């Protein structure tokens, strides 16, 4: 049995709604097959909220074990450092999360808000939001850089706005099975953050031959003009499809880089920042001069069916 407590902080509830869409494994499977006992989940628990209070007291007193603490939402520290823009029964959720984290074997940030601050920390960051162990890109959030959970891990960041349904349930299944969870440089499980959104995008042939759309609703690549961050964003959106069906880029919506610590960018979200005709942010690790040379050659080699945009994404 693996006990799990789920708290919502400054949140839209989207990660809860997202995990309800998971199918491999589903939330029901986590309970039935992986032995996860949901001590508390705000949308699913039957008991009245008094039960949560009892649980929290028992956990803090060391009478109830807490294997996994899931946090959904930004850590709100305003106004004036009080955290009272997001209260729980007369105290701040911020302080409650800090105390519970000390008792948990693992702490998991579900979504970019809990991991890095997210949409609520966009300028002017009206409520002074942070992530659990990061403040946007900067290490150190509510918890310090050196903080470790009882099992010796930093906060596990399953970023995304919302987090990918199956990335959440698979991570929880791995923890319940006692499998090792290897993290990347910003503490995301590598197994879900070691591929780009670009990888598996059905518009790739257009990108390959430098055929770029300049207006929405088309079939070609959106990287050069329409703000798509697929080649610079790590996520499984195009290798494990959303809702078992598709992804934003397949459906003609640019990737907004929602798994990245600086989501949402300050720059216009439907427009690509460029130097001359080439994006400022190139695919990871690519040299600008080489990229320009490759692109002009690629365009020369493009077949008519791609140049004429007759291929469906």
């Amino acid at each position, binding site marked *: 049995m693996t006990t799990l407590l789920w708290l919502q902080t400054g949140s839209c509830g989207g990660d809860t709604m997202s995990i309800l869409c998971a199918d491999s494994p589903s939330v029901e499977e986590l309970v039935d097959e992986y032995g996860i006992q949901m001590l508390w989940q705000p949308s699913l628990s039957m008991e009245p909220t008094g039960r949560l209070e009892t649980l929290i007291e028992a956990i803090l007193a060391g009478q109830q074990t807490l294997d996994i603490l899931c946090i959904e939402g930004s850590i709100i520290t305003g106004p004036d450092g009080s955290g009272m*823009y997001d209260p729980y029964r007369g105290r701040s959720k911020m302080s409650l999360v800090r105390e519970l984290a000390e008792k948990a074997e693992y702490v998991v940030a579900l979504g970019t808000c809990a991991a890095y601050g997210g949409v609520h920390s966009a300028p002017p960051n009206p409520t002074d939001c942070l992530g659990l162990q990061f403040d946007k890109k900067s290490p150190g959030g509510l918890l310090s850089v050196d903080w470790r959970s009882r099992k010796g891990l930093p906060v596990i960041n399953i970023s995304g706005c919302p987090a990918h349904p199956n990335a959440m349930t698979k991570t929880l299944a791995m923890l319940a099975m006692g499998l090792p969870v290897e993290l990347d440089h910003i503490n995301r499980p590598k197994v879900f953050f070691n591929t780009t959104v670009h990888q598996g995008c059905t518009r790739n042939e257009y990108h390959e031959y430098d055929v770029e759309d300049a207006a929405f609703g088309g079939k070609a690549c959106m990287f050069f003009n329409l703000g798509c961050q697929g080649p610079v964003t790590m996520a499984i959106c195009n290798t494990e499809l959303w*809702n078992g069906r598709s992804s934003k880029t397949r459906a003609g919506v640019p990737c907004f880089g929602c798994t990245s610590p600086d989501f949402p960018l300050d720059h216009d979200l439907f427009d690509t920042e460029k130097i001359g005709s080439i994006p400022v942010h190139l695919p990871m690790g690519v040299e600008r001069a080489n990229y320009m040379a490759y692109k002009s050659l690629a365009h020369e080699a493009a077949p008519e069916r791609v140049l004429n945009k007759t291929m469906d994404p």
Partner: protein
Amino acid sequence: MSRRTIQIDLNRVEGDLDFQLELEDGKIVDARCIGSLYRGFEQILVDRNPKDALVITPRICGICGTAQLNAAVLALEQVGRIPVPPAAVRIRNLCLMAETVQSDLRQSFLFFTADFCHPKYRHKPLYEKARAAFLPFKGWAHCGALEYSRHIVEIIALFGGQWPHSSYMLPGGVTTPASQRHIIDSLSIVNKLTRGFEQMVLGGDLETWLALQSADDFFAWLTAKGSHADSAIGLFTQMSRDIGLHRVGFGTPHMLSYGAYDDPDAAGTFPPQHQRLFKAGFLNGDTGIIEAFEQAEITEHVRYSWFQPYAGGRHPFQGQTIPDYQPHSDRYTWCKAPRYQNKVVQTGPLADALINGEALICSLYQAEGGNAWLRQFARLHRTARLLLKMRETLHQLAAHPNAPHIINPPEKDIPDGEGFGLVTAARGALGHWVQITDGVISRYQVVTPTAWNASPKDSEGRHGHWESSLLGLAVDDPEDLVEIGHIIRSHDPCLVCTVHVLDTGKRTTLWL
């Protein structure tokens, strides 16, 4: 006379919801509904490119992001007078309907019916059947709702890439056309869900259900077959009525609906000319007359909210949202108090059905009024209607192959000006009001369905809808307020749209 103050917070709602109730001799004599979380979306949007609202505002709400997206894009299209082709209207409608069906299934069987498993009801004749249906992760209706709600949003993923939180409605249309593959995939999803809904929720066929025209028809249907009585809607109805939910939770008699789903045959028009498939209107509870809806009649008050004060009410185009957290004052919430014609109103599927003139709901309303059971019932009845409407929409898309799905406006940027986008989200009337100055957003005001329903008192001291739905209610056991849970959850609370804090002050506060 004994008087005490109790404070309750509720789970199985979207977001954080607290109530402070004054009990006198076992009756609720005052109620303060407290939206306690503040996130500051309206401030985040200022100074951004107008189109960024299409990425930012869906994140207001995890359960109705498609409706937020639609409100945002309609507001931008109104500013730029940007027309939308009929196929795009149909695709938008289809996705909005899918999101509402998702929300209604989850609200009904994950959030609402779980309360019937409360041990307080163990002596009720249907208790064991209710537990077999509604117990979380075990009951067949709970498990069914998890599965079916997961499937229906696949339609949104086909057209928008993912659910929740995509941005596929752009000024002028949608980002991807309705290919024949998408249409058949979507039909297949609707077919499966329809069969599931018939088997699980109705215990009978959809056509028979949709032919029910009156209260008498419905009660006859309920007893006509064992499968009807033992269905999810049958058990929910019998348990609700055994407990007496058809006699409580009325709230304000004034009802507001913005109308739902733009008419694709009127594509390219703007308010007030444009038409909707389900009618907009205001049901005046004093006269019983349905009046034409006029958005200029909307105002918001902040007398009891933690925002910098102003006198009376302001239309959203003059609205201001400057946080002013004053926990030790008589202000008590991060919700503003919206009013229509300066009246307290309610919004949601009950209001929508009455204003749209749906016979079964109108008949039940005339018989027993707008009670907690009927409010929840209207939500499930809507699912039945939407399943049919989704199929119709898909057939219309199939009948117009290669119709354009977007007309990109000639100007890339949205011009300066102001506009609003009003839609019906799962919980009712949702509005965005935007003003653009020098190419960036200079003001953005959002009035959510829950802002209407969860409204605090206004500058004239009148209670909001939820608050008034609790006044006068007798409470058996102040230590165990399951009856309040039923009433509040029948309103489908979604508090993520606001923000909140609690002032316990010097009151005796009892957390339950």
